[in-house]
């Protein structure tokens, strides 16, 4: 008996696992699966690619550069001057309806929002409305954490300090009458940014929360006065501010400025006619060879216009089809010698 026991302790377990005999699925990429699979995938991709391309082509985009680096351009005077709130205006004409909903973007180029130090230069706790960080901003905000008189800057950091501060108004001239095109500034930032990630301190009035702090150096107005027209659009949850704080991935980027309010005449988009954009030119970009532009675009289910996806799908779809043809040839070539 004892012997048997010792045997059972010494003898390896005879289980599928220990004996490496677990039942296993042994897939084989056989031509019988791969060729039809490739044809199917290829056709599907070509289909998607065509759809994407058509969609992308149907998206209307209007880009207007207003940097003013060439002398003839409307904003050249503003770009050279250092006057705050320099005004200039841009005209464009639509011959057909610009299908709505129309989005109004501003674009910057050669602007490195993805610069590491720049990106780190903010204090998320402050922006979350934590008052204790108002008085002592994070050191990552340096050199925009305290002003020259050692007062804390709120919101601190490079990103906030460099917030885009050109403003635009759009007017539509039709039959000699000039109408202000209503621009909707709500919902241009991520919902979660607006509602959760950024918060104003729960102090009323908001202004009191900022006691003892100063506004960022480049700002004309403190954070709690960003939007005079809408008191709820102030502080850290100001939509323009939120849009700016979401750093762009690449040095040439566009950010959502406004949506054309789809009401009245603009229900279907921007009707044909002459338009004028009045620009309050504040934001200097020529120092780093940057450029500024205004983009009007409508979007589809896939977002803004982007031909890359459609082309990629078309190319890869056809690649799959070609490859399945190649494999068929290989099949035909190698099948017969094997039959011998």
């Amino acid at each position: 008996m004892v012997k048997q026991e010792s045997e059972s302790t010494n003898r390896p377990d005879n289980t599928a696992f220990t004996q490496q005999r677990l039942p296993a699925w042994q897939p084989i990429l056989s031509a019988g699966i791969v060729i039809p699979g490739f044809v199917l995938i290829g056709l599907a991709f070509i289909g998607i690619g065509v759809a994407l391309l058509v969609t992308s082509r149907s998206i209307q985009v209007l880009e207007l550069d207003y940097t003013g680096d060439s002398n003839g351009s409307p904003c050249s005077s503003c770009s050279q001057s250092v006057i705050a709130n320099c005004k200039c205006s841009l005209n464009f004409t639509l011959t057909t309806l610009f299908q709505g909903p129309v989005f109004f973007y501003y674009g910057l180029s050669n602007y490195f929002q993805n610069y590491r130090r720049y990106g780190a230069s903010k204090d998320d706790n402050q922006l979350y409305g934590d008052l204790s960080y108002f008085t002592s901003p994070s050191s990552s905000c340096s050199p925009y954490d305290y002003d020259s008189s050692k007062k804390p800057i709120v919101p601190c950091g490079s990103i906030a300090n460099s917030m885009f501060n050109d403003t635009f108004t759009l007017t539509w001239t039709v039959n000699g009458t000039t109408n202000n095109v209503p621009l909707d500034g709500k919902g241009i930032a991520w919902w979660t940014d607006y509602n959760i990630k950024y918060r104003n301190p729960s102090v009323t009035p908001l202004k009191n929360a900022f006691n003892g702090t100063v506004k960022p150096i480049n700002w004309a107005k403190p954070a709690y006065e960003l939007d005079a027209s809408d008191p709820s659009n102030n502080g850290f949850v100001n939509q323009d501010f939120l849009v700016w704080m979401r750093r762009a991935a690449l040095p040439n980027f566009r950010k959502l400025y406004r949506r054309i309010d789809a009401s009245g005449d603009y229900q279907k988009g921007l009707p044909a006619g002459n338009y004028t954009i009045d620009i309050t030119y504040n934001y200097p970009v020529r120092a780093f060879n940057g450029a500024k532009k205004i983009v009007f675009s409508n979007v589809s289910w896939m977002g803004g216009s982007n031909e890359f996806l459609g082309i990629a799908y078309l190319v890869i779809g056809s690649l799959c089809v070609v490859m399945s043809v190649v494999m068929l040839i290989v099949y035909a070539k190698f099948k017969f010698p094997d039959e011998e």
Partner: protein
Amino acid sequence: MLRRRLNRWFGGEDRRVGSRTIYVGHRPCPANEVFIPPKFCDNRIVSSKYTVWNFLPKNLFEQFRRIANFYFLIIFLVQVIVDTPTSPVTSGLPLFFVITVTAIKQGYEDWLRHKADNEVNKYRVTVLEDGRRIQKESEKIKVGDVLEVEEDETFPCDLILLQSSRDDGTCFVTTASLDGESNHKTHYTVPDTERDVESLNATIECEQPQPDLYKFVGRMHIYKNNEEPSLRSLGPENLLLKGATLKNTQSICGVAVYTGMETKMALNYQGKSQKRSVVEKSINAFLLVYLCILVSKALVCTTLKYVWQSKPGQDEPWYNEKTLKEKETNLYLNMFTDFLSFMVLFNFIIPVSMYVTVEMQKFLGSFFISWDKDFFDSEIEEGALVNTSDLNEELGQVEYVFTDKTGTLTQNNMEFIECCIDGHQYKYRDASSEVDGFCVTDGPMNTVQQKAGREREELFLRALCLCHTVQVKESTEQGQGQDGRIDQVDGLMVDGQVVPPLQEQRGFIASSPDEIALVQGAMRYGFTFLGLESKTMKILNRANDVEMYELLHVLNFDPVRRRMSVIVRSISGETLLFCKGADSSIFPRVKQEEVEKIRMHVERNATDGYRTLCVAYKHLTAEEYDQVDSGLREARLALQDREEKLMAVYNQVETGMNLIGATAVEDRLQEEAAETMEALQGAGIKVWVLTGDKMETAKSTCYACRLFKRNTELLELTVRTLESPGKRREDRLHDLLLEYHKKTVQDAPPAKTRVARNWSSQDYGFIVDGATLSMVLNSSSENNLHDYKDLFLQICQNCTSVLCCRMAPLQKAQIVKMVKNSKGSPITLSIGDGANDVSMILEAHVGIGIKGKEGRQAVRNSDYAIPKLKHLKKLLLGHGHLYYVRIAHLVQYFFYKNLCFILPQFLYQFFCGCSQQPLYDAAYLTMYNICFTSMPILAYSLFEQHISIEMLLENATLYRQIGKNAMLRWGPFLYWTLLGVFHGLVFFFGVWFLFSNPALQDNGQAFGNWSYGTIVFTILVFTVTLKLALDTRHWTWINHFVIWGSLAFYVFFSFFWGGVIWPFLRQQRLYFVFANMLSSVSAWLVIIVLILLSLLPEILYVVLRKPRGPYARQKLVQSSAGGIQSPRSSARPLLMRTFSDESNTVS
């Protein structure tokens, strides 16, 4: 296991000089007024590395000595000190993980060593103290203790023999575990100490411990009743070494002189050198490449950064001013810190977690060896043992197998198989057959007579009983039952199964186990050798009468004559000469008409792998005898040329004999030895037999194992072939070497055709013996030494099998070392069971111990231990192959996945002003290797069976496909690297094109940089996981679980990580980024298309690769397997099979 280092700590250098004085039994001696008990180390054996207390610091130190760990530590420190893009946690956490896992593993292994140490240290020994016997633990033995050791016990420390239970003051010892010599050695007691050990008053003065086993100098002062102390000199013959075993002696008493780490055994122990596998070397080479890539990446980025900054307006745009501190620091210092920052940013390219995964894979994977029930041997009730898990994959790379013969290839269990008397074959059948167990199984074809005459039979058996030098073992009281059976090494052998119970305890001692087998064979047939008493040999014959023969002369065996004779006189006064020897030496000396009848049997027996001996006899007339007698006496007294003279007399006597018959003795091969050897050779492994045995024996074993085949041409380089008239041995050696070299190397077909050669072409077998080998290796410098060695090696390497006989243990290791260091540094494996194989087991890349009968020395020093030789086949062809493929894939995959992980991050630097902006979030950077992609590859590397084990075993040639580190050479590495680069480019630029318009949602909102990184990362995780899925040929539920599980985990984690505002984070970078990404159709589409694009070439490759290479190989497999139809299943080319199978169903 025993560390020399430790020993050095214990035995301080100053104590080494001079001598030590030992008080026997700790009794103060009259001469010394003041008794100062000297301090020596205790008898503890310490092979463990750590104690509970020093484990942490010592283990950490050892771990950080590894280059990789040190590198990560440095990266970590850089992150802590310098302002770097990623937080120290990103590299600290994986490093912590690595260190912890390794520490746990090493701790576990050390715990095992502690256990083994304890087994030795807690062994109970008997100490004589004040006339009483006290049981003590072995570790408590102190120098000066008087110990009692009983038969078959090993000595717990080095002892001076004081008293023996044998009358003559001797004891017998085997030192098999020390030097591998398994014969009995005689040791002597110190004179005058014999009688009264209890009251012995003596001191021993001896040298300090030194490792030479055969040197010992000391003297003993014996004090008796105030007499002048008598002095006795002590030499090695008085010293019993720890590790040696007492034999044939009931008990001895001895005084401990060296204990613990100061014993000669401990001093002699070579610390197990760290064996590193080729895979590890490959890893290091690859690592170097990646380190270069890393450094150049960092350099490129640093350079670009400063080039970019030198352009006006770029260095410090107004929106991103530098801090005061940055402005003030020196430009070059800045450059340096930037460089470091880039290093940190890209450091993930060198996979920390690879080391962990590799370690885990090895550790866990090795369980499959010990779990394998095929390795379980029901006889010893044990399975395989894995002593190190570092060499699993090396088992798949073996090119040379060095095997011991006795006990490894053979069972070391000589058995009398059959004999042939006058051309009639007699085969012993078990007791169930005729009463005397003697029956005719096969007669010569042309004779009617069925049985040889009775008197011929009896003559033959008498010859067997008389013609030998066997001694009967004195049966001791302890020697009952199993005791008598233990010692088969020494030729003490009792076949308890067959012999009648009366004779069960009868043991025989002889220099050669063959003789015992013969005597026992005769015993089975009714003639029992009772022993030799004062020149009289007694035989118990079939009728149970005792026959007496006076032994007149023994004409000893020698390898040149290859026969031995005895001259005896029977009671009736007849003088008889019995002679037995190799057929070649007997046949010319007997009457020719008798030869033919026997020759047939002998040849058949020889080809069956039996050792054959022919037996002849001769009546000597009185005159003849007188002549011989005087001749022998004269020759023996001769002072000059005694050997030659004796030989001449021998040759003169041993002529004109009558051939009686022949015997066949089998040294039984291990189960399936031949099949195993054949499989190994089929796998392209060269098998070398290294044995201390005689050439003939070894050769016949080689034939039996089918290492030599019938058509194998044997090239002999032995003392015998060197013996040629009129030539110096050296010249002859030179000639032979050149001749063989010409044959095997120069005339051999060029390498190209040899690869594809089939086995019908000439095979060569090479035989060399120890003496010749040492001539080759140590050939005096005047004969250009290198030439010989090279020639020898080249010959050996071109032979299918090599037999080295008459090898000393050290020579075995020398051979292994020579091959190991030869060109191409082939992977060697040594397999053996005895202590004499330890040196070669330690020397070879992989050492395998057989859990045989010769003790556990080999097992303890081996890397793997298996119960039987036959298990080697599965160990190499099955486990080894799989382990290699698994780990090779693991390594390549790891480098690949980290390359395509980091490449996008590198590329991103071109688009963010080289500001070290990480592309991925810190959590992703950290988790990528630990969580998201580590488990699938670990599961793959544990469970993958690209070819089923059965197929691997059936088709030995498959082993060649992975030979020479095939999967880790630069070719495959380049392939994987290019794949990684391709994937990295696809990931980054695919998304880059997408982000030319960052408004990717249907609400017009734009995505930011973290979205960019997350999309790239999602594609990355899915692609590398699916790439592995494509490579997986063997999907167990674990693979499914782990592959789909880690993808699911990634998605789940990303949601979770982005779904909560984490209070401990300074920046909530990823807040809802993942969820937002998923809400964008474009992101989905780009992820799908890029994954497919990345995998497309892989799929194409998998599908198209198959028809060519392996198919051709497959044909070779079939032809080389000698017509054996290899099963046409999974080894067949993938595409071919599926095509043809389909076409069958279609048409």
